[in-house]
Every structure is written in C-alpha cells, then in structure tokens.
C-alpha cells in the first residue's frame, strides 16, 4: 500500500479530479531526481568481445575488470559453461565462460579478461576474450530483440535486455540469478 502522507483513502475519494492530480503531481515531485552524472553512469555500458561479435554489459554491475587468472580451481557437478572457482577479495567466486554460456561455443581463453560482476548479493567472474570501450546507452535506445541470433541461443533470450547498434545488451538482473540457479541445480542434476 502506497503511503498517503496523512490523507486517508476516503480523503482521496472525495477529491475533485483537479485536486487529485495536483496532489499526485506534488507527490511525484517528492521522488528524488537522479543527477545527470548518476544518470550518465547508469547508462554506461562496457563493450565485451565475444566469439561471434560484441555485447554490452551495464558498467554499474561490473565491480572490477582484470586480466584473467592463469589458473582456476575445478568444482565438480557444474554446468559446462562454468570453468571453476577463482579467488576474488578473499572469497571464492564462480568463473563463467560468457561465450559458452550465451551461445554454447567457447572462445574465451585464460589470457582474456575477467569481469567481476555483482547484482544484489551475487558475485560472479565473467570470462571474455577481450573488452572494448564504454558506451552510453539510454534505456530508450535499447530496441527489443528480434529473437535469438548467433550471439545467443534461444534458451538465453531471457538474459538479453535488447539490442543497441546490433549488439545485444545483457540484463545483469536476469543473468546473474540465472547463472546462480543453474549452478545450484547442477549439484543435483549434473
């Protein structure tokens, strides 16, 4: 239930239309505005090189970009797109081959780049062959995806937010929970 700031539902019901919309507009102004810098940061995306083209990942979800570790630790019963575990800031995080995850083909070598991505309390390492520049992509500029392409298999359609300049834009809020769920399920179903 949205708080009515002192007004009861009954009060709202007795308002004239004009009064109601004035009140609504006044309440809408209470919502803090995002500063242009913040907005700009939120729109920043990092271009990642994949075997079949590039994709864009929101920069706000990336905590660190570093050269890929030379070695990793294998973990049993994991999906084939998970290489293993790597240490990051004193914790073991899963190392995900993003190419393999998206399109089932691996081109990411261990001399690529590691993007440490975070969403809520989930942290994973995304292994990509290379990274490019950052690009500002506003929400309105992302077009709906026309369907699976060579960049990703149909099963991964849910983690693609849309397309910008023919490059898929990843939805980290869907990608990371999906990765975690599938890693967890692999413990039971291999």
């Amino acid at each position, binding site marked *: 239930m949205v708080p009515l700031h002192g007004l009861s539902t009954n009060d709202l019901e007795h308002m004239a239309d004009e009064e109601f919309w004035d009140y609504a507009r006044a309440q809408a102004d209470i919502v803090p505005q995002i500063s242009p810098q913040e907005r700009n940061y939120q729109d920043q995306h990092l271009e990642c090189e994949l075997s079949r083209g590039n994709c864009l990942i929101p920069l706000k979800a990336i905590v660190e970009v570093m050269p890929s570790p030379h070695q990793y*630790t294998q973990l*049993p019963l994991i999906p084939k797109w998970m290489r293993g575990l790597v240490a990051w800031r004193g914790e073991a995080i899963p190392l995900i081959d993003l190419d393999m995850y998206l399109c089932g083909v691996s081109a990411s070598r261990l001399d690529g780049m590691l993007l440490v991505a975070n969403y809520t309390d989930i942290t994973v390492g995304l292994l990509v062959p290379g990274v490019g520049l950052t690009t500002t992509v506003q929400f309105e500029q992302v077009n709906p995806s026309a369907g699976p392409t060579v960049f990703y298999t149909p099963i991964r359609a849910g983690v693609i937010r849309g397309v910008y300049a023919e490059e898929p834009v990843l939805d980290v809020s869907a990608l990371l929970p999906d990765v975690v769920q599938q890693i967890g399920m692999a413990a039971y179903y*291999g």
Partner: protein
Amino acid sequence: MDDLDSPDHQEELSKDDQEVLRAFHDLAESTTSDDSFPQETTQEISIKYQTDTDQSAAFLSEDDMLALFASEADEDITTMRLAVQHLEQANRLDSPGLKALKRCTHKVAGTAAAIGCASMSTIAHHIEAIIKLVENGSLDFQTGLIAVVHSVQALEATLHSIVSNGYESKNPLLELEEEYKRFNIDVHVVHNAKRSSLETTDAASTHWFSQHISEYDQNSSSLRVDVQHFNKLLEHTEKLIELDTPMENAQKQVETALNELQFAQARLRRLEPLLSSLSISANTTPDALIEDAGYPPSSLVARILQEASERAGHVPQKKNLVRTQPLLLHEAALWDEMEIDRFSETNVLTHSLTEAITDVAMATSHLRHALMHLKSIVAQQVSQASTVRNEAFLLQSLPFSVLVTRLRTAIEMMAGTQSERIQFEVSGETVEINQDVLEKLTDPLLELVQMYIAEVLFFTKRLAQDAEQSLRIWLNAHTTRNESTIEIGFSQSVPSGAVALLQDTVHHLYGSVSLQDQATGKITLQLRLPRSQRMIQGLLVRAGSQHVIVSVSQVKRIHYNKQGMNGSSSQERYSLDMLLADTHEIYHLNTLLGFLPAKNTAEKTVQTALVLELDSPQIAIEVDEVVKEMELVMKPLSAHLCRPGIASTAIDGNGNVHLVLNLPEMIRLKEIYQQAGELVKEADTESDRELSFLQPGTELCRKILIADDSMYIRKSINMTLSHEGYDVLEAVDGLQTLEQLSKESPDLLLLDIEMPNLNGYDVLSIVRTHQEFSALKIVLLTSRSSEKHKRSARQLGAHAYLTKPCPQDVLLKTIKSLLDDESV
C-alpha cells in the same frame, strides 16, 4: 470386492479416503473377496479384502491380516496409554513418554492408513497435531494432555468397533472432534506450530547455554571478553596464519637465489683453470715481443711508466730496462703489489678472478647462514602463530563438563520419574572444546539421551537378569592438536535415528560420525570434530592439475609406493600388497571428484594413497602427490556452490582456491556423482572376485528385504511380493535390517523411515559407507511425504521414494524397473 468406483460411494468418501481405499484395494488385489464383513453404512467404511482362494493357502487370510493389524494396533495403543500416564506423572513435556507417544502415534497413523482405517489414521494425526501445539506453546500442557487422553480413548473405541463389528466406526472420531471444539483446539494449524516450535526450542537452548556459560564464568577464574574484540583477535590470528605461505614463498625465493649464486660460483671456478692455462700459454710467447716494445708485459705498468716519463721529460732507455719475466702460474699465487710490473695482464685477470671467486664463496656462505637464520625465524613464526591460534581456541573453548552437567541433569530428571537406574559414566570432563561445537551439539545429544530412555522404558523387552543391571550411558571426550573427539555409548538398545540426528549437525561442524560395536547390540557413536570451525589443518594433495585439501583428521595414514605395482623391490611390492589386502576399495581422487574417468584396472599402479580414518572396510584414496601439510583458513561456499563431499574452500597466500574435501562424505554420496555420469568406480579385479559372492541372487528369484516396524505392513507387502515370485525377507528394526543385509544379501531393500533401533536414515547412512552394499537398490516406503524427507533420502543414496499408502502397481513397477535396470 465392493464397488469403490460407484458414484454414490465416491460422493460419500473424501478424496483421501478414496485414495486410501484404492491403495488398499490394489494391495489386496491378489486376494479374493470375503463376505464375512457387512456392507458399509453412510457413516461407516467397510474394510474388505479380495482373497485369491488359490493363493490363500500360501498367504495369510484376510481375517489373519485384520487380526494382525488389530493386535499390533492394540499393543501400540497400550504403549500410548503408558506414555500418557508417564507424561501425567512427570507433569512436563521433556519426558521420555513424549517420544514413545510420538512414535506409536506415527506408527498407528501409517498402518491404519495402509489398511484403510481412515478414522484411526485421522485420530492418530490429530494426536500428532496436538503434541505439536503443546510443544510450541499454542496449547497448554494440561489441556493438551486431556485432549490426548480423549484421543487415545477414541482410537481404542474405533479399534474396538473394527474387532467387534468388522468395520470401522466413524463415531469416535466425530465425537472427538466435538471435544476438540469444546477445548478450543484447532488441529489444522500444525505446520505453523511446528515452525514456531523449532524457534522456541532454539531460543530456549541458546538461553540455557548462555546462562550456563555465565554460571561457568562465575565459578572459574575467567575474564569477560568483548565479542567484537575477540572476533578481531581471531581475524588477526587468521591473517597471521595466512602469512605462513608468503613467508615460505619468500624463503623459497632466497633458496633459489642461493642456488643461482652457487651455480655462478661453480662456473667461475670452471673458468679459473681455463684462464690459468691461457696464462701458461702466454708464458711461451717469444720474449722478443717484450724486448721490442721495451715495456714490461703488463700494459698497465707500461702505461704508468710511460706517463711518468712524459711528465718528467725523461725517456727510459731500452738498455736500462729490467728484463721482466711473466710470472708462472705457481708464482702468481704469491701476489705482491710491489712487484706489479712483473705481472702480465693475464696474471692480473687471473688474480681478479680468484678474488671474485673468493668473494662469491664468502657471499654464498653468508647467504647460507642468513637462509638458515630465516628458516629458523619462519619456523618460529609458524610455531608462534600456531601458539596464538591455540590460545585463541582456548578463549573460545569451554570444558566438556559444561555439556556433561546438562546431560546429567536431564538424565536424572527423566529417569527419576521411573524406577530405572541409569548409570552415567563420564571421562574427559576437563577437556576444552570449542563453544560453538558444544552449543550446537547440546540439543542433539539431549535428544539422543531422551530417545534412549524412551526406547528402554517403552519399547525394549529386557530380560529378567538384565532388569537387575542398571542401564549405562557413557560419555568420553578427548582432544588432539587439531581435533576433538566425543564418544557417547549406550548399554541397551540403540536409539532410533541416532545417526541421522547427529549427522547433520556434525557435518555442519565439518566433522564425522561413526558407529562402533554395533554387532553386540550396544552402540558407541564417535563424533570427530575439528578444534576450530574456521581453521583447518590439512594435507595439500595433488590429483592431476588439481590441488585440494584433505583434513588431517580424516586420514589414518599415507601410503607411498615409489614404483607402483610393477616395482621390482620386494619391499615395495609387499607394501602395495599390504595396502590392497587391507583395503576394500581404492578410488582415485580425480575420479572420485568426477574430473577424470576411471583408469583401466589392469594398468593400475598405486603411487600414493591416503588411507582413510573410517570403520571397516578400509578405503584408500589414490592421489598423485601429497605436497605438504598446511594450516588454512576455511571460507564457506555460497549455497549454490555447495557440492556433496566438499566442506568449504581455503585460499592460500598465493590467491589459489583449494577445495576442502570431506572424503568420508564424498564416498558415502558418490552415487550422486555416478548419477551425473561423472564417476566411474575403480575396482580391483581381485576385489571384484571377493565381492562376487556377495552379489545378490539370480534373475529368476530376486530377494527383497522389507524393513518396517509394522507387522501389518510387512505381511501385506510380503504377500504382494511373494505373489509376484520374489523371495521376501523381513526386518523389524534398523539393526535387524543391517544383519539381514549382511547375511542374506538381498537385491532390493524396501525401507521405512520410522523404526526402532536405528531408523531408515541411519540404515541408509551406514549402508552407503559399506561398499559390499553398492549393488543394493533401496526404496524408501514411508508415510513421510514432505520434500525435505525426499531430498534427504536422495542425498543419502535412495533410488526411489514412495509414500504410504502406495498403490500396488506403483510399488511393483518401481521394484521391477530398479531390478531390471542394472545401471541405476
């Protein structure tokens, strides 16, 4: 058979009733109808069997089955009455009577449902609900007790109606539900009640523990420590320990530098004679060259003389020059600065080289001393870090007596209301044990003791001579540098569910539970736990390119064999033969982890193996190398990264992640890896031959063992399976199940969860640690239908899970598919 499918009938019965009746109908399909029972009325459900007259001679008749159920239910109701009386006398909930009441109620609920007595089953479920309401405080003890008394009476009346009339009357249930309404009892809120019950118990337990710790503090010369500061201390201690690896690495780098220096020194030494030989060959140069030049052989001396003469305007006369002779090699050793003009350049170079060699040798010697000093300091640092860690442990520890006092009080209270004498023997009361461990073990151990007392008071039939002897519970604690061991033993029967009760807690504490002396009917449970919950003293072992950590406490010994099975040394062969003879099974670690397929057994060579600290049979894990023993800080894995047999991770000073393995658990749950197609068992050919006689019977007559404490269930399933041509065996409790499994080697085990003397989970846990049962198919057949139970069963390696009452066709189909499919 009555027309169960008729619309009228379906309207009268609830969905559950219909399901129960249908299940029973299926169960009794192989028998023909008997008209001795009257038809059902609107409020009464008739119980009918279809008896196959051709088979009746071979199987129990319908009357026999009913009599069996009635007799068993009567016995259970009597025990329930006794348990209620016990509760009344004790006037509190934590009485062994409650355990007995719960078990009997559960049994009646399951058996009654299986035979189709819906009312009896419902009443039993109501009793379970009331107990839960009382436990979570939603219902006061006295009201709950009265309700239970009424419920037991209703059960008795319903059973009486079955025995006297041949059909189940619903009236006692209806009257009982009216009673509940009068008492304001809502039995439908049990699930919520169960949750809050757990919370209440936890809160009570934590409160007790805190209280006890404060009592302990008052009685001892302890110092109160701020928790935050203490945690910081632990953190710093861990960081100190983590420094071990970088220090060792630095030491290795210095060692490498020293080696390089020594190598350079050796090269220089090799150059020295070469240069000397050059010097000798220079001596053979014609003197004319020197004479023509008019300068001494050394250009340095010549240059000095030349410059001096130029400054003085004096040109030295050739004839006045002293004829200098280059020094011979042996003369060069007698270096004299005053006679420098006698030395050639080669002599000077040779001398410089010799000096350089001496300098390098001295530097090497100094470095060697410095390295020895560094090693000594590193050793001291490691030792000091270990001391600090141990001191930190002690800060976190409490004497075992804290837990003992609690158990002793509980035993006295529980046994005090009975005439039973229970002897409680304790050793190791002063042993210091981690507070977390003590706190987490308190509830399961109390529960275990409660279960034991309920077992001996209500279920164990003691012989007259035994009755004279008091019951014994013994408790022992001891500790090594890295591990605490707690043993609890019982002189009489085994508490049902003992292993399952402790296993979860102990595994969460990175420990292991093992059983001892089970053959004698007595049982000792041994709990092995690491002293610290954050640090691990482990072996860093290599398997292929992987390095993993195995807790030192899980390894009995390390087997080394330099040349493997083909080694020529008789001693090595002997050593390997010893390992193979003593060891039931050898797994390769990489195979066990599912990283590599199993090796061809013919090519097997065992280089290094870890022999595990397990009960028989002995199991060894082959590894490629035991790198070193090290101490690491454990980092728990996130939930989605948890894997069976992997306790946690540890990150070394170089930033490498190592999996910390729980090998006994990994072996126990290896089927999970097998199901994923990851693991192929390695079996020695000889071991296979030894095992072959243990393999189950022929295709034509497969043996099935039914383990259930309900005689009715056993007999009814026995009839069904015998009719299908299976050879059927029975076991009434967990211990008997284990005996039958060893003695008869059945192909399939139909296992109930709730049983006395080790419950179904205990049996599963034990079976999965014994390789000789690896071919055994296990089907859990239980009235527990929650996902939690199904998940536990799967994790423990059950092949199928069926819920009672189970339709006959489902049961038979499941059994057939498991027995036909050897790959399962």
